[in-house]
C-alpha cells in the first residue's frame, strides 16, 4: 500500500509569489492534515480536511488555504509568500492507530 505522497519535494519561490503544494493520503483515508515545520519551531498545525470539507484551522493567516478533492487528495495554497514561510510542509493522513506523514515539501522563499 502506498504511503502519504507529497509533491513537489523542493520549491524555491520569490517573496510575493504564490505556491501550491499537493498531497495524496493513504488509500482509503478520508482525512488530510497539513503541518508547517519552520526552522527552530515545532510542527505547527495548519489545516484539517475531511470528506472534502475544512474541519479545523490552525493559527495561520488567511493567505494559507487549501482544498480537498473527491478522491481525498489535497492542495495547500500559500499566497503572497513571505520569507518566514520558508519551511518544511508536511501532510498526514490518519488511521485508527495514529497518523502517517508524507516526506514533505521543502519550500524556500527568497
Amino acid at each position, binding site marked *: 500500500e502506498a504511503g502519504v505522497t507529497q509533491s513537489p519535494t523542493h520549491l524555491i519561490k520569490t517573496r510575493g509569489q504564490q505556491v501550491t503544494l499537493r498531497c495524496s493520503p493513504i488509500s482509503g483515508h478520508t482525512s488530510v492534515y497539513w503541518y508547517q515545520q519552520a526552522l527552530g*519551531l*515545532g*510542527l*505547527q498545525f495548519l489545516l484539517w480536511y*475531511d470528506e472534502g470539507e475544512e*474541519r*479545523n484551522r490552525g493559527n495561520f493567516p488567511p493567505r494559507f488555504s487549501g482544498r480537498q478533492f473527491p478522491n481525498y487528495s489535497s492542495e495547500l495554497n500559500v499566497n503572497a509568500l513571505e520569507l518566514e514561510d520558508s519551511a518544511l510542509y508536511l501532510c498526514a493522513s490518519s488511521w485508527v492507530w*495514529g*497518523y502517517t506523514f508524507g*516526506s514533505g515539501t521543502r519550500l524556500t522563499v527568497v
Partner: protein
Amino acid sequence: EDKVVQSPLSLVVHEGDTVTLNCSYEVTNFRSLLWYKQEKKAPTFLFMLTSSGIEKKSGRLSSILDKKELFSILNITATQTGDSAVYLCAVEARMRGSQGNLIFGKGTKLSVKP
C-alpha cells in the same frame, strides 16, 4: 492554551547507554499521545498511547503514559548510532467525534556517539 513540552531539548549519549525522553502536556479534550522519530523529513510513527499505565514496547523502545500527572516517557535501551534523530511527542485533541489535530512539542534531539 493547549501545549506540549518536551525535555531535554537535546541529549548526547554513547552507544549502549539508556535514555529517557520526557513529554508533558496540557491539552483539553485529550484523545491520545503519539511519539514519532524524525531523521530527515517524514516523522515516522513509534507509539500511540491512550490509556494510563500500559507500557508499549517495540524492540529497544518503550513508552508509557500517565494521564493523571499529564506526561509520558519514551525509553530507549542499548542505544545505537541509528537512534540519532529528533524525537517528537504529539497530543491529539478531540475535535470532531473521534478525530482531531495533533499538537506537537519542539522535540528532543538525540545524538548517539560511537
